[in-house]
């Protein structure tokens, strides 16, 4: 591939010390990331899949410079951000934006939607025009008068649209979505997935999409990295990983996903356990 690299992660390690449990023993350490390396090309849709506790959120936080690595490097658009002080991270805050899982806890309940969307612009010293806010509301499929209301007046799917509008405000080139549809109803999930997909195409964004649901990743992403216990166990094109998983963990993960097609052709719950043993 000749596309330039958007995000490069090299041998990333993150250890968390836990509170001491004994006076005479050192504090126990949680190894959240044990040497993770990956490369996301510009304009690519990259998925990260894994179960709770596998380190996928820690990885995202370090890529977004919300957390510091114990060792290893993260290079975003050619700049190593791992040791940069906060004041020199401004380029990252403009170029890389996040959408979180729970829009209720990531939107300030006391702010009007138009102020929420304008905040990233204000913080970075750009003029926050009403025009830009209206444009963003329209881009995510909300009516212009939505700007006058508060987050609690919206449904879950609409709140996620507001988060997306906020993320797009500073015209980022990289969008990171952390389980953006996990809290949504099925009929609304499809709308939000379509919206993300359309925006990524229109704005030529690089997308990093994190989910525990491989079927969602498969629909959205070109390539996927499968994480387990702080390590990437398998990387590949989503179609290939889904159809022919190589690593035993991926095999177990893929076979555990209930699908309509399999169920209608007679699969039972014991078939979900078919490969590998119980965890």
């Amino acid at each position, binding site marked *: 591939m000749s596309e330039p690299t958007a995000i490069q992660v090299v041998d990333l390690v993150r250890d968390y010390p836990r509170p001491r449990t004994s006076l005479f023993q050192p504090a126990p350490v949680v190894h959240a990331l044990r040497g993770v390396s990956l490369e996301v090309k510009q304009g690519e849709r990259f998925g990260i899949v894994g*179960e*709770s506790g596998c380190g996928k959120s820690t990885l995202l936080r370090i890529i977004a410079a919300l957390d510091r690595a114990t060792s290893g490097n993260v290079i975003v658009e050619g700049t190593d951000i791992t040791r940069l002080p906060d004041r020199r991270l401004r380029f990252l805050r403009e170029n890389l934006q996040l959408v979180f899982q729970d829009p209720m806890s990531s939107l300030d309940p006391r702010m009007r939607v138009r102020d929420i969307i304008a905040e990233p612009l204000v913080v970075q010293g750009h003029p926050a025009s009403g025009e830009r806010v209206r444009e963003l509301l329209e881009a995510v499929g909300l009516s212009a008068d939505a700007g006058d209301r508060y987050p609690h007046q919206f*449904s879950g*799917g*609409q709140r996620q649209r507001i988060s997306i509008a906020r993320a797009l405000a500073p015209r980022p080139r990289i969008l990171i979505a952390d389980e953006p549809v996990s809290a949504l*109803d*099925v*009929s*609304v*999930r*499809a*709308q939000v*997935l*379509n919206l993300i*997909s*359309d925006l990524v195409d229109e704005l030529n964004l690089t997308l990093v999409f994190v989910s*525990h*649901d*491989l*079927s*969602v990743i*498969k*629909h959205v992403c070109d390539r996927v990295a499968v994480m387990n216990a702080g390590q990437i166990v398998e990387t590949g094109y989503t179609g290939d990983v889904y159809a022919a998983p190589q690593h035993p963990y991926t095999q*177990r*993960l893929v*076979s*555990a*996903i*209930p*699908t*309509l*097609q*399999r*169920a*209608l052709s007679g*699969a*039972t*719950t*014991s078939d*979900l*356990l078919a490969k590998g043993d*119980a*965890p």
Partner: protein
Amino acid sequence: MSDVLTVRGLSVKVRDTMLVSDVDLTVGAGERVGLIGESGSGKSLTALSVLGLLPEDVHAGGSVRLDGVDHELIGADERRMSRIRGRDIAMVFQEPMTALNPTMRIGDQVAEAMLIHKTRPKSAADAAAADLLELVQLPSETRRAYPHQLSGGQRQRVVLALALANDPSLLICDEPTTALDVTVQALVLDLIVRGVMDRSSALLFITHDLAVVATVCERVLVMYGGRVVESGPVGEVFTRPRHRYTEGLLAASDLDTNSRRLTTIPGNVPPAGKFPSGCVFRTRCAHATALCEETPEWSGTEARGFACHHPAGVADV
């Protein structure tokens, strides 16, 4: 085959807001029935009304009968209901931590279920508790553990062991695996299905996940806006949906399409009590006409039917 659970004309309301209307539901002995719907569809309230666990100032009407119980369950007093709960009907909730007593050892909690209903004497109950925990594939040390020492999946297995303790004729599961990882979900689902099959218990399984229902259940009821909009055998409802909501839901959850865009249902699920009159789906339905302002009649039988003025699967008029 006699019916274990018979629900007729169930309605649930808070003050003047109808949350569930006219739900008819039967579960045959040993049958596995799924209840699917999105948030606000009334599926959990339906289950809670069967158990008589509705919050205060939420009232149920209609009829709920259980095989082997000679009185009506709706409006039965607490003394009678507590004799039925945990013995004839057991329930597994979504959040296992709130369903377990944090100050009691796991083994004692499972044994307590049998002691309260006097189905086994103390010594036999302890032994039975150990067997049940083994059945849900928990190591024997778990008996002496407290709930906070277990993971989410382990806790849910304890709750399942508790629910199966008195061989209930009906097990109700309300989103039992929604909070769990897929590999753990696979194990818990398998344990639930094997648990009810070994006891010939009936299962009422509530979820929003179509694929899970299709894997676990034989028959399914689709709820939307507090009404049952369609019911039938899983294979039929999911391959030839008749109600427009079922059709839309199936299309929206089909992530295997080759196109980048998914088929969507326009709009949002209205908040509880804000569903339109007449057909509850008409504000989001592409096929809605003036006719849909009238509540559609149920077409077909209870085992296979739907409530829609413009059903899918026939030539559009």
